């Protein structure tokens, strides 16, 4: 597979074209917005945390397939988890992408076992300019969780 085809895997295009948990939430929720000023990509997130668990999530935004797909996959990965688990996931993701230091957490023998669909974003690592695209939703999530003090 060429680097391009590895970058734009089917699962990524699918999340880009049909983003999950799209929209906004009513009621007591946490809201955060992220912007990548250099390219103009935008991402915002609403979270509802009930009984210490992320009960619902909705996102809005515009931008490239990488940022939007990363955000869509993120929503699926965090829903039903505690804020601390979401934080841990954020770290795992950032380590996989080389954004944070540390060994890649993935198991090369069993693709998909650690981060599920998100592992498809590994192809972005060959495109350093695009890493911040994949990162935007996660930085916005981290910001939201910080605000919640949860």
């Amino acid at each position, binding site marked *: 597979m*060429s*680097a*391009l*085809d590895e*970058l*734009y895997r*089917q699962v990524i*295009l699918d999340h880009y*074209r049909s983003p999950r948990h799209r929209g906004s939430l009513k009621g007591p929720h946490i809201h955060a917005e992220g912007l990548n000023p*250099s*390219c*103009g*990509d935008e991402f915002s997130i609403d979270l509802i945390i009930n009984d210490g668990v992320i009960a619902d999530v909705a996102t809005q935004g*515009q*931008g*490239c*397939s*990488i940022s939007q797909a990363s955000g869509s996959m993120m929503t699926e990965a965090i829903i039903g988890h505690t804020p601390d688990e979401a934080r841990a996931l954020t770290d795992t993701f950032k380590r996989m992408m080389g954004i944070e230091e540390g060994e890649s957490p993935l198991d090369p023998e069993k693709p998909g076992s650690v981060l599920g669909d998100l592992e498809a974003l590994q192809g972005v690592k060959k*495109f350093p*300019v*695009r890493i911040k*695209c994949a990162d935007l939703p996660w930085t916005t999530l981290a910001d939201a969780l910080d605000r919640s003090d949860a």
Partner: protein
Amino acid sequence: MTDLRHLRSDFPILGREMNGRPLAYLDSAATTQKPIQVLDAVDDFYRTKNANVHRGAYALSSEATDAFEGARAKVASFINAGGPNEIVFSRGATTSLNHIAYGWGLNRLSEGDRVVLTIMEHHANVVPWQLVARHTGIELVYLTLDDHYEVDISGLSDLLDERVKVVAFSGMSNVTGTLGPVRALVDAARSVGALVVVDGAQLVPHAPTDVQDLDADFLVFSGHKMLGPTGIGAMWGKPERLEEMEPAEGGGEMIADVGLYESRWAPVPHKFEAGTPPIAQAVGLGAAVDYLEAVGMERVRDHEHEITGYALKRLADVPDLTVYGPGDPERRGGAVSFSLADIHAHDIATVLDEHGIAVRAGHHCAKPLLRHLHVPATARASFYLYNTLDEVDRLVDGLLDARRVFGLNA
């Protein structure tokens, strides 16, 4: 075809490979590449003449001053200014526009005065006026674009009254390639005695420019967009306007006398050049102007018309591709913005990059325009004298590959 292919060897970077393919640099609206003639002029300046200018009482400093002032004279004659003293060097078009907004605007405009802009302005011709508005209470008024991506001047006469003090617009849009309607806007401004500021960042590099014909009050441009170094640009001003304008920056070299509480300014243009100027960069810009004049600005323009026309024709064959800009290559510049199906502009740029093709993606520092066009980002190819028709073909092939990668039929 005005074949300028032989010039390519003057540009070392064009021999580079990018992702395994020869580099096709289609981003000259952002910044241009530099010929060895410019690099050598800069290098030679540092190796043989480097000293601070104007202040020296020794021969080296006078050689440096001659080189610097010689560059000013070259730039002046390049745009047919009345003389070197009508040229003020700056860091670039952005700084020059800020100088005008602050030096003229902050000191001579007040609450309720209006500045007329167009919706296609680069942020460099929007934000400085917004900053000055904070301190003065001036109002910004925008002309919009019509369906053919031309500045809509139909409502112009209704808009004109004595509140209009400045009309400031781009000579050519860096997004749509639209040419500013210079004649109409200059006449309109004159009819109410308003100042005319032309953002020539995309104009001066690409076509012969004659400030006598233009008949504006100010024209600004950047060296790095016309084969020159980064860090240098220029403002041309009508002598009367330069006289009446206050300096926006204070410091050494721009003064006749400095007292503890007040100072007097040096004559134009020095009163606008506070501090050590970008000396070697001015020398480099002088060499860039020499280079462009040797090629001939008519040829540069004709070459770009040809390549832009070819690009518009070939892009029309790519399914689901929309070009944002006028269709007639003779009535537009060589910045070609487009979108392709549902593929985001950044993804287009990434696919093209894999093909060795450098295009820009984003809002191109023109958010008001992109909002008006209802598109968050475009991909943009832009051409200069070193580009070839082959590179356009490669662009089209790259776009077809983007369709494939995104699962669209090619």
